[in-house]
């Protein structure tokens, strides 16, 4: 038990992202409202973004802007300690991923509007009954 707790605390970022992801997945699977599903989808994507951000974090490190890199009294590249800075690459990647997720969300909302225009509801079970009535 003790060990398990330690494990969880030591890797809390992973646990958090998994919990968030599961919340998102749960919403996508079980919610009846199409918008709620979309929100779940967004939570799902955000969980992964957080995961990426968390892996770039280092203790006692700062943002990767090198002080005194230019001008008089600049530090030589050899003197830069990688451990002193957080890894910038995941941040950059996630910038792109955020754009992707925003775009996806936008497209999905637009489609949801179209669905609403078609059936005048966003509740999935109601849409299903409408479709069934139409077929009859």
């Amino acid at each position, binding site marked *: 038990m003790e060990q398990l707790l330690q494990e969880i605390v030591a890797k809390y970022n992973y646990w958090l992202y998994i919990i968030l992801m599961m919340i998102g997945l749960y919403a996508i699977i079980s919610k009846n409202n199409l918008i709620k599903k979309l929100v779940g989808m967004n939570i799902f994507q955000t969980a992964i973004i957080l995961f990426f951000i968390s892996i770039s974090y280092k203790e006692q490190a700062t943002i990767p802007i090198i002080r005194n890199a230019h001008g008089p009294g600049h530090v030589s590249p050899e003197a830069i300690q990688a451990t002193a800075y957080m890894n910038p690459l995941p941040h950059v990647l996630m910038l792109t*991923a955020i754009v*992707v997720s925003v775009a996806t969300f936008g497209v*999905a909302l637009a489609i949801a509007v179209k669905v609403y225009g078609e059936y005048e509801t966003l509740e999935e079970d109601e849409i299903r009954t409408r479709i069934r009535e139409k077929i009859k």
Partner: protein
Amino acid sequence: MLEHIPVLLILAPLLAAFLVTGLAWIQSAYCLPLALAGLLGSLLASIAALHQVMAQGALSYEMASWPPPVGIELRIDLFNSLVLVVVSAVSLINLVASWEFIKREFEDRKETFLALYLLFVTGLLGVTATADLFNLYVLLEITSLSAYALIAMGPSSRAPLASLHYVYLGVIGASFYLLGVGYLYIMTGSLNMGDIASLLPAIWSSQTVLVGFVFCLVGVWIKMAFFPMHIWLPNAYTYASMTASRVLAPLMTKVMVYVMIRLMLTVFGAQYIFRVLDLGPVIVWLAVLAIVAGAVMALVQRNLVKMLCYIIVSEIGYMVGGAWMGNQAGMTGSILHLINDALMTFAVFLAAGNFAFKLGELRLENLRDLFARMPLSSAGFVLAGMSIVGIPPTCGFFSKWYLISGGLQAGQHAYVAALLLSSLINAILFMRVVEYAYFGEVRTGHGHHGGHAHGGEMDEAPVAMVACLLLVVASLVLVGLYSESIVSGMIQPFLVRSFV
């Protein structure tokens, strides 16, 4: 100029997409020629790339001159040059074939459709050409986003909902893939495929690498509609506009199969996949399920397009199973089938589109007397169907040969049996369509003396549609007859290092 070919083939349709969007406001008559020029550009560039790859080995292109692994690399080798040619050719031919259809279905929105179509093709070409795992994710999402929109534009009232369901699953798939890439990044600190491949052997035993691989694999499976993650596919492709399904159905899933094989062979390496992991038998069994389930579900469909969609689900099972067989014959079959299946799915969807152009909804009962009304399109459909069933000399037979050989060599008899079963079911499926099309209204008694009054006069689809169909059908036979050149000239040299 020549050294920029890898990036040109992606940029051509991308540029065209932007220009089409802009021109739509000014002079919409130029949109189609522009789009065609863009696609033709990428076709020519991919053929040139294929030529170069054949002559001097893989091409590597550093985006903005940043050398890998820092910069993004495009890498074209024997495997993806072939896929690139197929993707660009199919999208170009489809646009030529479907233009009449697009004009009718979209009227004033046809420029929007064109721009989305071009973006979709850009994404597919990018996914195929890139050698960077994250770049692949971004391009994959460009492809998917344009696919969602293309599907939602469909004429059916059910199209938006089908598209939205695709969005939910598509996003989950892409996110899983991204997560897997994250795990690989943690372990290797790199995103370049070649770089990761050189770093991985030292950490094969790591659980994290395994988790990363599995996440990537599941993500790709969702995107390729591998049973039971196929549920988004049939509705999305059925209710989308026929012109969109014609390009989505052959290309989207097949490019995802390409990504899976690329991950297996180039990133992780056959050694890791088949020796270290030992997942093969399990996945082959999943493939068996996919093949049988797809075939059985196709049997109960009354709508032609939906039936074809379930055949795709079954074919995906062929390719996944072949790729995981763990021997050269299986992998050869899988890659060959990837090319062949893209072409034959394209051919059946072209034919179905021609039918839909004249008939509207493609319920099987609507197809009566089709041979009399649309003889050329029907003949094309039958030949494409022969290829899917796997009758020589069409190409479907030859890839099936390798797949079955691989199954026999690996002792996976269930897979061989499933393949044969699904071939038989495919034969039944196409025969059923042919029966509807050939017999027309059922006549009983001895009405066969004297001429028949046939149900319809000849009423063929427009020339461009028929010509494109016949061109693709002819390519089915040619690709079949020249299978040996493809296998010994491209696939086997590509596989030579993987299976020693």
